[in-house]
């Protein structure tokens, strides 16, 4: 690995591609062309999924959606540098549409989540992706726990946890990062700095010069990377992963990007964000940037783009059709509260089933439809 994280730990933003994608400004990551093309396809898929989930919410068919637009390279690039067989990913909530490297089940499960189906609550085994997290930063200590466990078991993986600039203000972040430094655990703290926490801009979130700078207090490296540069994301995450699995300990990675959409489908940025700010990021689109680079190398084209978009639409439609077709027993919320239900829950469930005109005995197989 050419990138030295200790040296990169400065205030500069690490970048491999120039902002318009026309030139290399640093050594590209040591990955095969096919893998970079796969990252490109994944970003295209995420962008298509983004539009689809947005319109499904507007039609009243899907629940509140948190758009990924503009942040595709952060997730798809990081995932490309991880090992789906050994590493854990802990998303916040924007990431699942770009985590296809961890299996097609991720998007399919996320469609169920957006549908409000209980089976959307977990990515099925053996997918090493934790459930999406609504309580901001709560997943960061979990990542440390997973990493600690892998080290105790002598397994070679890392835990890569995504969280936002807003979540970095929570105690859970400081507590987990501090402890991770003490343990030297294989955790990648991936702070997605997209500029805004709903209506709260960076300067109201922290007075620090950068989020990466906070790593100094934890005793491990912090690095700023251009989150709209997929190649830079691959390089930095690969270097941090290499460091972690060889016993070097955690890294704090600040991916500098921008939330091009609203916080969620329930939000209206016009209330608090100057339109020029978003406009200033339009020329830095992560997909156009990688596309220009790949086209320059003969690895992408207008045809490839159209093909990728069509494949993405087909995959998302299939995932959504499956989600909409999947039924659920109305008493399924009694499943998986405990390994065995309490006596009172058994009574409550029978009362609900009787009320709904169902056989009072739930029997078996009436659960959430998981695994279907």
């Amino acid at each position, binding site marked *: 690995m050419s990138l030295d994280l200790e040296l990169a730990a400065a205030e500069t933003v690490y970048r491999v591609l120039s902002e318009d994608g026309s030139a290399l400004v640093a050594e590209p990551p040591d990955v095969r062309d096919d893998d970079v093309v796969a990252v490109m396809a994944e970003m295209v898929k995420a962008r298509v999924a983004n539009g689809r989930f947005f319109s499904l919410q507007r039609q009243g068919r899907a629940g509140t959606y948190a758009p990924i637009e503009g942040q595709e390279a952060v997730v798809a690039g990081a995932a490309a540098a991880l090992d789906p067989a050994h590493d854990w990913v802990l998303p916040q909530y924007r990431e699942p549409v770009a985590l296809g490297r961890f299996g097609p089940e991720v998007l399919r499960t996320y469609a169920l989540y957006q549908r409000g*189906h209980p089976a959307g609550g977990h990515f099925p085994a053996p997918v090493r992706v934790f459930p999406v997290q609504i*309580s901001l930063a*709560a997943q960061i200590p979990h990542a440390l726990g997973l990493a600690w466990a892998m080290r105790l078991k002598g397994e070679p993986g890392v835990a890569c946890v995504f969280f936002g600039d807003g979540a970095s203000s929570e105690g859970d972040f400081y507590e987990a990062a501090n402890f991770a430094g003490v343990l030297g655990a294989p955790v990648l703290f991936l702070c997605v700095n997209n500029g805004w926490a709903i209506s709260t801009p960076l300067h109201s979130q922290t007075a620090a010069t950068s989020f990466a700078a906070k790593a100094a207090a934890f005793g491990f490296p912090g690095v700023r990377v251009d989150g709209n540069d997929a190649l830079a994301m691959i390089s930095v995450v690969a270097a941090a992963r290499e460091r972690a699995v060889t016993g070097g300990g955690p890294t704090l990675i600040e991916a500098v990007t921008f939330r091009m959409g609203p916080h969620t489908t329930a939000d209206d940025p016009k209330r608090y964000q100057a339109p020029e700010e978003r406009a200033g990021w339009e020329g830095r689109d992560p997909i156009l940037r990688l596309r220009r680079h790949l086209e320059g190398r003969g690895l992408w084209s207008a045809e490839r783009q159209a093909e990728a978009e069509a494949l993405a639409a087909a995959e998302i439609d299939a995932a959504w059709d499956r989600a909409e077709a999947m039924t659920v027993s109305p008493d399924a919320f009694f499943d998986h509260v405990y390994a065995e239900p309490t006596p009172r829950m058994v009574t409550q469930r029978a009362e609900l089933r009787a009320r709904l005109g169902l056989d009072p005995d739930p029997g078996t197989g009436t659960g959430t439809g998981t695994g279907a």
Partner: protein
Amino acid sequence: MTLVEAINHTLHQEMERDGKVLVFGQDVARNGGVFRATDGLLDRFGGRRVVDTPLAEGVIIGTAVGLAAEGFVPVPEIQFLGFAWQAFHQIAGQLARLRYRSDGRFGCPVTVRAPFGGGVRTPELHSEALEAQFVQCPGLKVVLPASAADAKGLLASAIRDPDPVMFLEPLKGYRLVKDDVPEGEHLVPLGKANAVRTGDDVTLIAWSAQVEVARKAAAVLAAEHGVSAGVLDLRTLVPLDIEAIVAAVEHTGRAVVVSEAPQSAGFAAEVVATICEEAFYSLEAPVARVGGYDVPYPVGMLEEHYVPDAARVVAAALRVCGEGA
């Protein structure tokens, strides 16, 4: 006006009345709150009194404690009640106890506002009903308005109260609940229940959004079953209007307690125990509870079967009246 408009109007009036009132939390200033409860406060009162905080619930409540000790009157917002757990050490261990642990030197006239309950298919942790957890923190008052007029009268009382108040607003009712709100000074005392409907056969006891469910049930009971049901809105769980509960149950001899939280050790159990202690010999039948089930608040596809509805309340009322299942 709607319930959320009543909250907004009252915040304006209280900030106008008392220059020590401060509003802060996530997205409350520039964005006016995700439900617009604090809309316009920044423009009117400025950035020294209306503050967007970093995203950290613990520090929102913790700083309220310190501000209150210096004589300010903080009205912090927790954006969704499930995120109050990230501040629970400050709420339960600090806010509730500062008066007690400082032997009365410091009070905490803090009003923590948060949306309460579900019914609108939100993401996880946005629909919690945690009232019993706050009741278990002696030192806190726990207030849950059900109407827009009460939202005004109770919020003004909460802000002026010398002790910390958890002011829990019905999320589903922010825009659905609409009634006449007095324009001028309007105070509803903490600790006084409201008999929103009188009845002779059974008393339905509820708070927050479940008051409306109980009212609907009472209408069905009268129209379709010839049962005269009274509805008692508790309004505040701490302090609890024991006198009103006892008087209502002594009158009807039967009661159904309706709540949204998981049933086991929910606040409905406290109401039932109070009735058993204070009005046992007036009872004609065991008291019934209608509530959430003992499960985490469910996902969107399932929540309609979880939150109590009028049909469940009617069935329970008929049961305690000895009229069928």
